[in-house]
């Protein structure tokens, strides 16, 4: 315990219960194909991909079905061999229907993947690697789903010294990054080689939270001697895995407000993303699946599964079984994961977990009495961005959104939820802040 406090970290933050013991030791298992896969064309931040297949066309697993449209966009690949049934709109977590492709896998579809044009580490130039990553459809698998290649392009006038591989995984319940580090250790280092070559960074750091010491040991043992790489252990604290917090903890650099990691000469890539780069690029393949932790008290067969992209949440839950008292499902962890309103929503590249909980966890939580802010300052002490959630909460209630942004740095809030977590008055602070941002965006757009 004391050990934990001597490790590097950021200031503030919270300590939610980890709930990782149920799945941390379970090896990644493969998942069958759902009868229909729903592949949204925009699973990333940026422009949706452009479809390059027709309705009725047969595709093989791994084949490109949509291409990147511009630089901030990535390709999509067929998660299974089968027939494109329909190109139209698919349900999404936001509740809206979004453009997407319905793919019906052949009953006999195998896990075999078609190889494309390989990107060889030895001969590829940085630009080759960047475009190969884009073609492979790779986005941040930690949840943000930002196209990875876009981070690697260093603009004129910026410089980079460190590539950080983020294996922190601070969200409760999730153990996917943990398993990937244990089971795909070589892929991680291969991916890191690509990343360092693409960016020309002088060193690499793999950051792991102190609750995954077995992964630290495995990584350290397997670390190739020719690479300038260290594996660093960080304190167990939420939201240690946020990009800004990792960089603060490792390098003691603060990304300026509104800035990017590059402003402090670093980039930060999720460890599962790195492993996918290392696994896919040598074969010229694209992402067709991802590792997902299905866990929480509402799940019968908890575990870490490699699941085809586009698998509906309903199918996933049917495979693992849910308890009778399961009442709430969210994608990702309980701190930031959005709740699903319909089980038809498909899994996307950014989905790191499916967590199902029962009334026992949420019952008391949902029906709690909301008091006015007693100014206890717990939210102020929890906010990793050093904001004043108490004051912003009061302003949000009075709909003073502009004031929140201009005087209290609303836009620096990355919605980690720490403030809501600690508030003894049970004020839905981060919920207010999301709403405030949406309102501000709405008023900003027509102008």
């Amino acid at each position: 315990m004391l050990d934990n406090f001597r490790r590097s970290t950021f200031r503030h933050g919270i300590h939610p219960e980890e709930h990782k013991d149920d799945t941390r030791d379970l090896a990644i298992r493969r998942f069958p194909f759902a009868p229909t896969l729903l592949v949204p064309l925009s699973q990333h931040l940026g422009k949706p991909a452009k479809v390059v297949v027709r309705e009725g066309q047969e595709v093989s697993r791994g084949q490109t079905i949509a291409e990147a449209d511009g630089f901030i966009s990535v390709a999509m690949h067929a998660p299974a061999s089968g027939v494109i049934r329909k190109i139209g709109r698919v349900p999404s977590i936001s509740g809206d229907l979004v453009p997407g492709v319905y793919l019906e896998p052949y009953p006999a579809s195998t896990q075999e993947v078609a190889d494309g044009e390989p990107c060889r580490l030895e001969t590829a130039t940085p630009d080759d690697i960047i475009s190969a990553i884009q073609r492979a459809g790779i986005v941040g698998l930690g949840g943000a789903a930002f196209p990875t290649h876009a981070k690697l392009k260093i603009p004129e006038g910026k410089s980079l010294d460190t590539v950080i591989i983020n294996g922190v995984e601070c969200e409760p319940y999730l153990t996917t990054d943990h398993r990937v580090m244990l089971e795909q250790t070589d892929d991680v280092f291969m991916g890191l080689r690509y990343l360092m070559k693409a960016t020309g960074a002088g060193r690499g750091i793999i950051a792991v939270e102190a609750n995954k010491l077995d992964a630290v040991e495995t990584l350290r043992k397997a670390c190739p001697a020719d690479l300038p790489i260290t594996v660093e252990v960080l304190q167990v604290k939420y939201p240690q895995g946020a990009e800004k917090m990792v960089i603060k903890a490792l390098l003691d650099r603060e990304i300026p407000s509104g800035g990017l990691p590059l402003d402090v000469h670093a980039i930060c890539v999720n460890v599962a993303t790195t492993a996918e780069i290392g696994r896919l690029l040598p074969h010229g393949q694209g992402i067709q699946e991802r590792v997902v932790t299905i866990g929480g008290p509402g799940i019968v067969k908890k575990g870490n599964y490699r699941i085809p992209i586009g698998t509906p949440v309903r199918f996933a839950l049917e495979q693992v079984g849910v308890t009778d008292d399961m009442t709430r499902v969210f994608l990702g962890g309980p701190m930031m994961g959005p709740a699903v309103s319909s089980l038809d929503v498909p899994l996307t590249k950014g989905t790191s977990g499916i967590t199902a909980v029962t009334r026992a966890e949420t019952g008391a939580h949902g029906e709690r009495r909301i008091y006015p802010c007693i100014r206890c300052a717990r939210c102020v002490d929890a906010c990793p961005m050093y904001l004043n959630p108490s004051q912003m909460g009061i302003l949000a209630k009075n709909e003073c959104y502009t004031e929140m942004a201009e005087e209290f740095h609303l836009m620096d809030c990355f919605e980690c939820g720490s403030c809501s977590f600690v508030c003894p008055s049970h004020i839905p602070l981060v919920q207010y802040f999301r709403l405030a941002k949406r309102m501000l965006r709405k008023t900003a757009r027509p102008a």
Partner: protein
Amino acid sequence: MKLSRTLQIASSPHVSSGASVDHIMYHVVLALLPVVGFAVYAFGLAAALVIFTATASCVATEHFLNRLNRRETPVSDWSVTITGILYGLTLPPALPLWMVVIGGVFGVGIGKYLFGGLAYNAFNPALVGRAFLQAAFPQAMTHWSEAFSPGRFTDLPSSTLTIPMAEPVYDAVTSATPLAVMKFQNATTGVPELAFGLTSGSVGETCAALILAGGAYLALRNMLNWRIPVSILATVAGLSFLMNLIAPGEYASPVFMLFSGGLMLGAVFMATDMVASPITNAGCWLYGLLIGALVVVIRYWGGMPEGVMYAILLANAVSPHIDRLIQPTVFGTRPENGEKKDEQEGTA
């Protein structure tokens, strides 16, 4: 079988720390109980009646006002109970009970309810009640009975049950507080007597040891910002030390200043009222400094022997301005970041 469920929709976070306002308030009540116990032990039946009457009048006032406005009664959040107990602890033990009731009604009615209830009070309601009594009944509010008088558990002081609006009649056994003795006779009381509450004073302000223990308990549970009492006490000690250096013998010693009067109770339980104190830690240091300085000034140079109450009320008024002045420095907005940027632009 097709899986179907009614799903609860709620936005994240889906978990919480489990902390709640009533839980915090409940622990504050717990931390106050030893102080109450000692008060009754030291001042007997009269103190018990004063504290009980104070609490009852505060709770009843809130209940009645809520009823009147058809609001849900928030007595369950314990906050008005705390107000009541604290208010009781600041009163002289022999205060006529009808005055106790009047102060309680005023404190909660004006000090809390008029401002909008829980979490909207700009001032500590307990102190508002006491300040009102101080202004309305200055004599009764400075009439102190002796601690540990032999008959304290069997007899009531004749003043306690005075009929409302009548002039209270006092028994012979009265005593001056150490601060008054200091102020008007320039004699000090020994430190052990002060620290363990063997002197006369308000009902609950005399036992510094128990007050500090209660404060430590709350601070450890993150229910009280320790910076406020530490800052107040350090300021009082520092300033009085300085004054003693400048003019030895003329002013009370730092230790005496710390342990006498309502300073401990005020610093630990009253100044720390979350609603009426600043929200940032830096703000809390400043707020404590302000209270400490005011206490010293009032005690040394003011017309009254005690100044803790006014010092806290004044600082309560200043607290929102401190908050406006001192906001947390947002991540990534500190000047060294700017330097880094400049550096980079320089190389570009």
